[in-house]
């Protein structure tokens, strides 16, 4: 027994290895690992890659997948830019109500998605507070169009970039900025060439988290989207529709397609991040 565990775990007098590792592995298996394995087995072994491709390779499914990833990318890009800006404002500036604003940034984490969904729909619907104003002044429909989906996903992903970038800005040594100014750089140049590169890795982490969250988002989107097939029907909704038709293979195929695309995207972001860290390290 001892000889076997030694190869996996370094010796230590600390107690509770068996109990803590046992609880962790059992719960992780029951809640996450076995269900995920069942999904993948059901897809790749039970249904087969060819069968799944046939389900996914249809206009309605492609349109839903494209919409989900496009809207998530647009919303996360907005949150990337706005998140860095908001983090800067929250760390560097003093203004009345700052503490409340800082706390409120986490509202999307705390507010249930269904609540956010009906609330956003209420204000952006053609007869709502902002919806009617936008309609009358610009002829712009927000609710029940793709723009509505962007709004919901921006809401859902808002805190991620702010919360990853904020601690990094706090850690920035003011002397770096002073050095840059002493060497004759304008404030703008210091911000774009000295500060922003320092924030890039953290901002990308936040971007990846926001993207992962908003690709799969369901609750806040379905109320505001209108859910018109091929136009405003997101991929998670299509999975729900397949399940309601008892088409389990169809649901599995779309779910696996979403996982594969998400995985590829997150991998790409990870590579960019490694590249930007190296660049920072070399500089």
């Amino acid at each position, binding site marked *: 027994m001892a000889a076997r565990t030694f190869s996996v775990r370094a010796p230590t007098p600390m107690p509770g290895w068996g109990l803590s590792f046992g609880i962790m592995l059992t719960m*992780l298996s029951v809640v996450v690992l076995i269900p995920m394995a069942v999904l993948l087995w059901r897809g790749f072994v039970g249904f087969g890659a060819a069968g799944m491709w046939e389900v996914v390779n249809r206009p309605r499914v492609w349109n839903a997948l494209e919409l989900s990833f496009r809207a998530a990318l647009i919303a996360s890009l907005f949150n990337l830019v706005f998140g860095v800006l908001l983090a800067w404002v929250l760390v560097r500036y003093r203004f009345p109500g700052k503490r409340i*604003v800082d706390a*409120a940034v986490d509202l999307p984490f*705390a*507010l249930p998605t269904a609540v956010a969904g009906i609330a956003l729909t209420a204000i952006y619907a053609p007869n709502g507070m902002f919806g009617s104003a936008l309609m009358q002044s610009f002829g712009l429909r927000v609710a029940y169009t793709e723009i509505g989906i962007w709004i919901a996903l921006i809401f859902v992903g808002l805190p991620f970039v702010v919360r990853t970038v904020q*601690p990094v800005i706090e850690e920035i040594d003011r002397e770096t900025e002073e050095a840059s*100014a002493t060497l004759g750089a304008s404030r703008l140049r210091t911000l774009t060439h000295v500060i922003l590169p320092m924030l890039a890795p953290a901002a990308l982490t936040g971007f990846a988290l926001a993207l992962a969250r908003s690709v799969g988002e369901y609750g806040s989107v379905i*109320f505001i989207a209108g859910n018109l097939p091929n136009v405003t029907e997101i991929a998670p909704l299509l999975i729900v529709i397949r399940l309601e038709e008892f088409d389990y293979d169809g649901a*599995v195929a779309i779910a696996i397609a979403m996982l594969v695309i998400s995985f590829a995207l997150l991998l790409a972001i990870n590579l960019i991040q490694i590249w930007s860290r190296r660049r920072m390290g070399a500089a």
Partner: protein
Amino acid sequence: MTDTPAIPARPRPFRPATTEPALVKWSLIGLCLAVLTVLLFAPLYAVFDEALRRGWAFALASLSEPDAQSAIRLTLLVAAITVPLNAAFGIAAAWAITKFDWRGKAWVITFIDLPFSISPVVAGLLFILMFGANSALGMWLVANGLPVVFAVPGIVLATMFITFPFVARELIPVMLEQGRAEEEAALTLGASGWRTFLTVTLPNIRWALLYGVLLCNARAMGEFGAVAVVSGKIRGQTTTMPLMIEMFYNEYLSVAAFTMAGVLALLALVTLTLKSALEWRYADQLAATHRH
């Protein structure tokens, strides 16, 4: 002594090299507040505004309906089961990960984080596949009087999946930072393992634990997508508060929907308040990312 150099008439207002001009600063603050108003504050206001459209009495009456009451009870029940289980998992995982050195740790941490990057709908689908009517296990469980899907156990499992990483993610960085020295000292002085945990470790991690539990609870009570898939939405039996909101909303019972939403929004505000209080008072005992 008469040829003292002329004093410059008026020095230019001094601005440190590490700030932006006041005009830029206030425009950025204004822009941020405007975006947050449109995206965060307005929806929050709209929830309460819509709920109270026909007065307090009408709104409160919608909460005392049997369906609404059973939804509230179910949501409380699911949170009461899910949160302690995930807290226990979080403590066990953080202990195993931070107090011992073993191979495969990075993989386990990745798997714990997995639910954060999976769509809630896919999470629900996982448990339909495992325990649904088309799986042997599901059939057997139904035959033995323990249905999982379209019943409370399925809702609990789906909620556990969604909230799985919250406590562990909060505790791991804190316990990593605190190290093992205090526990080792207690053990050397003859304390038992449990006593070491209860009197040394637990007091060190209590605020971080509370922080994780708070976020876990908020998500558990508010989860929609995963629960919508596994619950079957049987009125009065498997309908949680967020699902009840959807039902009322689709039935054009606007006040009832927004009143239920208002209750959950109040919960969110309480969560945010407690969370901020923890961040301000016990920043040194929370994970580094929450210290600002």
